[in-house]
């Protein structure tokens, strides 16, 4: 009941009042889904402490904590922006190729391995961020580094 979104017929009404001045300003990420997905593992690699902090704050507040966790949330956003900026600065061509491939392939990562490998290599060489998938079984190549895969 209370979660129902108000709908208006005349025009789209969006409250554009900015946050008060005593809240530190933070730029929003502003990336769309494919670049975010392409950069997700690098965001996870660099921002894990911030992300964990934020999620712990949210858990402590029983999943609410919009006001309490603003500080952690700003750190999370700033960290994600820093990763995206660095990738854009150092590996723009590879990054762009990968997210365009994701965009064209229904955002299925297994369809974009050929352009993903150069991106991973570039990011690892220049930014020292490695893509790791937690929980991969021991003694088995992670799925993004497999030489021969069935889904290709």
């Amino acid at each position, binding site marked *: 009941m209370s979660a129902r979104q108000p709908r208006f017929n005349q025009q789209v009404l969006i*409250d554009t009042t900015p946050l008060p001045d005593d809240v530190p300003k933070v730029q929003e990420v502003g990336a769309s889904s494919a670049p975010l997905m392409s950069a997700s593992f690098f965001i996870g690699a660099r921002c894990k402490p911030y992300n964990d902090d*934020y999620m712990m704050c949210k858990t402590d507040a029983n999943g609410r904590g919009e*006001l309490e966790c603003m500080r952690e949330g700003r750190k999370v*956003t700033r960290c994600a922006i820093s990763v995206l900026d660095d990738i854009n600065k150092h590996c723009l061509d590879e990054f762009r190729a990968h997210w365009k491939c994701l965009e064209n392939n229904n955002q299925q990562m297994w369809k974009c391995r050929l352009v993903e490998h150069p991106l991973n290599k570039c990011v690892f060489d220049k930014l020292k961020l490695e893509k790791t998938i937690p*929980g991969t079984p021991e003694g088995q190549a992670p*799925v993004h580094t497999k030489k021969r895969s069935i889904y290709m």
Partner: protein
Amino acid sequence: MPQDMPPAGGYEPVQYKRNLPARGFRPSYYFLGVTLLCTWGFYEFGKGVREHNELAREKMWSRIHLIPMLQAEEDRDQVRRHLADKAREKELLGGEFKVYHSDRFVRPTFAATPKDVTK
């Protein structure tokens, strides 16, 4: 009238077996072949299932890494609207009023629409 009797020395043996050459290999070879084919097929299928699981894991983790960032953005927007709501309420009503008999945050049901179009 003389009765018909069997010929001397008895009848010829009756041929009841078919006299057709058996084509192909022995049946057991076919059975073995199909069994091997199916075994190989299930083996490959199993490999595919495991790879599929890994792909699903990859996808899940890529989302897990993004969740805090997206949630933080959404929360900030909620806070912005909430504070704006309160400021507007204060401006219109001249003070803070508790609508509900609890301190829990309740998402507002009604929204005050602005006088002029904002977007």
